[in-house]
């Protein structure tokens, strides 16, 4: 069923390593922020991405739109490879900056404090020559601002004069300025008050419906991601461990880490909450500078075997549209 839909973004074996200084002189170490991630995003869908802090969600999002230069792998946008480390393809991104945009987590930090809102939104218009003259430019800025629920007179103010929710609206208006097709929403609501969060989420959903946008929605809050996403990917320590349709993933998680993550989501019903058995993990998340051998989750996995320590599990499809990377599944031993 899903194969007829168009894949807008395809990512294959994407790696992003950051170099850091080691303890010894001239020693270089690598933080393996994103390790061999493969996924695709259908046009018009929302792909949710969850995982605990420091698991590489944000890095993955930024690397896909090449705000970070990937270490290796392949990124295909709308059929055109924009990055391929094997074929040495590194397209100039300027053309694609019009199509791929990002909304950042911290709205106040992501807006240049020295520029007025009008300048922030208008800069993108100027770079891509989207308006012919000053009047058109001004009209476009005003319409963008009203589209995200701000007043047109806000254009002459500076970002610090706004509340967090309004700042995030400015960030969204800025991303929409170039009429993008694909937007990476990098935890767009986690810096906001709960009351504002739902406003922004609803607005993002409305915009998606109106403009046919495709989202990569990154968050650490499973409940929000479940609400907004068509499909959900789960990341652990730089790797994608499971990916499936939202309903499927939330109700039939097959990877032990996903099961743990979901068991930590608060339930609104205290009765159910008490009755539920929570899976608690032992130990801390290992350092991505020195990740565990084999399956990266084996140090904390309650079902880990010798094979998990030695061999890296392959990310494969177990049932239609349901992908996971775990050795236990191959043996058919997971308690689904």
């Amino acid at each position: 069923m899903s194969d007829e839909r168009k894949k807008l973004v395809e990512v294959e074996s994407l790696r992003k390593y950051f170099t850091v200084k080691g303890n010894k002189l001239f020693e270089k170490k690598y933080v393996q922020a994103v390790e061999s991630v493969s996924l695709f995003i259908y046009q018009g869908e929302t792909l949710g991405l969850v995982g605990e802090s420091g698991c590489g969600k944000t890095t993955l999002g930024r690397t896909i739109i090449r705000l970070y230069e990937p270490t290796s792998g392949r990124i295909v946008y709308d059929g055109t490879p924009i990055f391929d480390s094997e074929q040495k393809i590194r397209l100039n991104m300027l053309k694609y900056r019009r199509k791929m945009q990002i909304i950042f987590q911290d709205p106040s930090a992501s807006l240049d404090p020295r520029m007025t809102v009008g300048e922030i939104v208008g800069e993108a218009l100027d770079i891509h020559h989207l308006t012919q003259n000053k009047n058109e430019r001004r009209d476009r800025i005003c319409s963008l601002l009203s589209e995200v629920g701000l007043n047109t007179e806000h254009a002459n103010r500076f970002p610090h004069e706004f509340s967090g929710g309004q700042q995030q609206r400015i960030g969204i208006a800025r991303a929409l300025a170039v009429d993008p097709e694909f937007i990476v929403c990098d935890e767009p609501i986690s810096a906001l008050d709960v009351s504002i969060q739902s406003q922004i989420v609803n607005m993002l959903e409305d915009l998606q419906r109106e403009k046919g946008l495709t989202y990569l929605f990154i968050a650490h809050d499973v409940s929000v991601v479940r609400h907004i996403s068509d499909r959900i990917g789960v990341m652990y320590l730089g790797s994608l461990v499971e990916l499936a349709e939202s309903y499927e993933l939330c109700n039939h998680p097959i990877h032990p880490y996903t099961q743990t993550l979901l068991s930590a989501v608060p339930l609104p019903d205290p009765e159910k909450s008490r009755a539920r058995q929570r899976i608690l993990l032992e130990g801390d998340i290992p350092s991505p500078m020195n990740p565990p051998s084999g399956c990266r989750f084996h140090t904390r996995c309650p079902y880990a075997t010798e094979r998990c320590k030695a061999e890296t599990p392959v990310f494969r499809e177990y049932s239609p549209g349901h992908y996971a990377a775990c050795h236990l599944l191959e043996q058919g031993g997971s308690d689904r």
Partner: protein
Amino acid sequence: MVAYILKRVAGSIAILLLIMVVTFLLMNAIPGSPFLTEKSTPEQIALAEAKYGLDKPLYVQLWNYIKNYCVGDLGTSLKMQEGTPVKDIIFHQGKFALSIKLGACALVIAVLIGIPLGCIAAYYRGSWIDGLLRVLTTVGVAVPTFVLAALLLVVFSVNLNWFPTLSGSLPDAKSYVLPVISLSFYYTCYIAKLMRTSMLDAIHQDYIRTAKAKGVKTHILVLKHALRNSLIPVITYLGPVLAGIITGSFVVESTFSIPGLGKYFVQCVLSRDYPVIMATTVVLSALVIFMMLIVDITYKLVDPRITLTAKEE
């Protein structure tokens, strides 16, 4: 804005009064007298002190200073030719102008070279360019001015004979070169270091990523977005530097034999020329305070988030 400036001016007058009192007390705390020489007898000293009112109680002397300053009378020198007004020494004999000319050149150089150097180092962080600049600026901050000045003098004036050894009253462009380099080197390096740090900070901010996501070209990214946001620490530093650098440097002026204010001021302290010390201190303090005010107003221009209010919050 106007209320803010008025409040600052009122505050400045209070500060100046305080500076006068402290300077006066410190001056008198130093043992010795302006008329103390090997030949003078106690009677002669007493006579001279009586003539200039130095035998009166301290508070009377202080009160006389303040009273006279209010009407713009800075007093007369005790040591220069009998009764030369201090005002003439500072302003009319060109000492002040000389120091300002020298300092202004040094400052312009420090800013025009320091800021780009800092930007370059930050942009190429971790590369050999950054490493080279780091060594250079660290040396620049560490080497004392008198060493640098003497070194420049020996190499470029004595050995190579490119520039005059005595700069004097700075008659031509050539005579400026060495003193300006000596005076500005430290500040150039310090500004470059400051700039590098705050530029690095700015480059890693999310709004730089936002700009990159918009498709802004790299050099515009650095010049437009990062530079404007990283200037604040440099401006803060420029306030005191501005005042310090244009009021003259004793070391540089002595080394190159420039009869500027900095050199003269130190001589006056050594010879206990009370009225001149007092006047110089007050004039320099007023300058520093004025520069601070300018800096605070500049903040507002650079960073719209800063509001200048007359009220305490």
